[in-house]
């Protein structure tokens, strides 16, 4: 399938003041590579503090001003400049933000959903089969579109008149989803879309994502909830200390030797992550992720890795293709 979004060698650094008069540049993301194909769900999985939320900011061109960006981002084969990003954001690429704080506290929810509705009107439905053929409903008045989408998530149409502070956690999550669905964008970046949802709502949301992807929409799901990611994603990118260590197919997490939980994964960190899953091994891994100002010189995971050799500490391993996935480890087979 066609590649729609490509991120190559992305690096993000912040300049900040230290105690006294020293100033330094803090590199939060380095060597991040991902490829998103049409109709695909790519999950970006990593512990909090790995810098994964900044990826969304980089793609949409909304990083803070003291952030410096390196590397290239391509959309439909075209290199994106800041100007291009400003042009396509909200229209081609939509963001589902992580919390209710991203809604204007003094504006009613309905109006905020309505902002995304573009001239042609309508929203992507996805999910339920009967509506599959009318992915985009044309020419409906805004109010109607808003009402429809609220109804779809089992929210009363009175919710349109609520202010954000009146929403419960689950309602807020659904409203945030609705803002992206009404945009009709081809790429949706979901930043931590699952916390706060109860089991049925979670499944509903995940099913929607899958439905959207099956309709040709591409979804970048940034999450630390590996279970949710594995339920619907096609591929999973494992993110550690600002670097992509591995891009694996979802089935790699479950296949192979189930007793060890290593599956078909390639990188020792991914294996450790997989082993920590409750229904796989529930093995916590030792140590913790290094801070951005204290990264090992070579592979960022080298200080915790069981397979470490001297070679690992010399330089960051290159991204290699192995068994239909990509990995940054010299020992991977």
């Amino acid at each position, binding site marked *: 399938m066609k590649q729609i979004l490509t991120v190559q060698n992305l690096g993000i650094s912040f300049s*900040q*003041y230290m105690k006294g*008069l020293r*100033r330094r540049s803090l590199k939060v993301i380095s060597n991040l590579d991902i490829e998103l194909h049409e109709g695909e769900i790519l999950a970006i999985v990593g512990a909090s503090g790995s810098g994964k939320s900044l990826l969304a900011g980089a793609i949409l061109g909304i990083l803070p001003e003291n952030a410096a960006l390196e590397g290239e981002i391509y959309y439909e084969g075209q290199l994106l400049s800041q100007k291009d990003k400003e042009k396509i954001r909200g229209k081609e690429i939509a963001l589902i933000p992580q919390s209710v704080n991203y809604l204007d506290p003094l504006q009613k929810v309905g109006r905020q959903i309505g902002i995304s509705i573009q001239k042609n009107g309508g929203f992507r439905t996805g999910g339920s089969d009967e509506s599959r053929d009318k992915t985009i409903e044309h020419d409906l008045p805004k109010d109607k579109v808003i009402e429809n989408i609220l109804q779809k998530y089992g929210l009363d149409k009175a919710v349109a008149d609520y202010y954000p502070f009146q929403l419960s956690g689950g309602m807020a999550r659904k409203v945030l989803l609705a803002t992206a669905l009404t945009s009709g964008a081809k790429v949706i970046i979901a930043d931590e879309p699952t916390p706060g949802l109860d089991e049925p709502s979670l499944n509903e949301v995940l099913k929607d994502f899958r439905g959207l992807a099956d309709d040709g929409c591409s979804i970048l799901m940034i999450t630390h909830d590996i279970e949710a990611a594995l339920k619907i994603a096609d591929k999973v990118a494992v993110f550690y200390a600002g670097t992509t260590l591995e891009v694996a197919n979802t089935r790699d997490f479950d296949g192979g030797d189930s007793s060890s939980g290593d599956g078909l994964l390639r990188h020792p960190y991914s294996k450790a992550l997989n082993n920590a899953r409750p229904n796989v091994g529930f093995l916590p891994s030792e140590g913790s992720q290094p801070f951005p100002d204290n990264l090992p010189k070579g592979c960022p995971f080298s200080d915790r890795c069981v397979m470490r050799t001297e070679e690992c500490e010399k330089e960051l391993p290159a991204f290699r293709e192995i068994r239909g996935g990509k990995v940054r480890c010299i020992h991977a087979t």
Partner: protein
Amino acid sequence: MIGIREKTILSISVFSFFFAAILIAGSLIKEDSLYVELSNIFAPPGGGHIFGTDWVGRDMLVRTVKGLSLSMKIGLLCSVASSLIAMVLGVAAPLLGGKVDIFISWLIDFVLSIPHTLAIILISIACGGGLQGIVIGVTATHWTSLTRVIRAEVMQIREAEYTKLSRRFGKGNLFIAKEHVLPHIIPQLVIGTVLIFPHAILHEASVTFLGFGLPAHEPAIGVILSESMKYLTSGKWWLAFFPGISLIAVSMMVNSIGKNIERLIDPKTAYR
């Protein structure tokens, strides 16, 4: 390349130097150096007199510097006194709590609900005018906002673990105030004192201008400006212009020093 911090420190130093220079220069000027020169009255600015001369030929630059230094001394006195009040009330309110706290909050509201100028005028009248009246008046009206800041700060310290621990060991309010609270609020007090100063000096000059502060024979900046009103319609603009600009410059300088110290101390703005 110079970073923001270096610039901040540089500007604090330069402005503090200027401040000290005016203060000292003004104090060194003796009354007799303000000699009357009736052959050269109302000389416009330029030549020998950059700020011009007044109705009896006195040099306006010398008068302005002298006036500023007097106003600055009063301003210093008032701002230090105000922050002492703020310190005592701001620490006492949360530590003693209960009725004391309610009363201090009420007192703040009380002071804030009378226009400052009116309050200073009333106090000045009560003192029969003069230096004493203006100092008490300005001090009595300028302690409120810093008190609120200190009170909020102390509230947090009161809830901190180490303070609670001290209390559990039976330490009294005085001990807690001295050991735990004071060291934490000193930065706020310093910033507060510096930032009160511009208000104090402006209020002093303003009220003196109205005729309630320093008497007309004092070389204060408010007196100079009040005098200039008489010659307004006859186009003697320099009598009012330069002293006023100098007063604004001093007030802005000190304000900048205060803001810059705040920027250095307060991590929220320092790291931005």
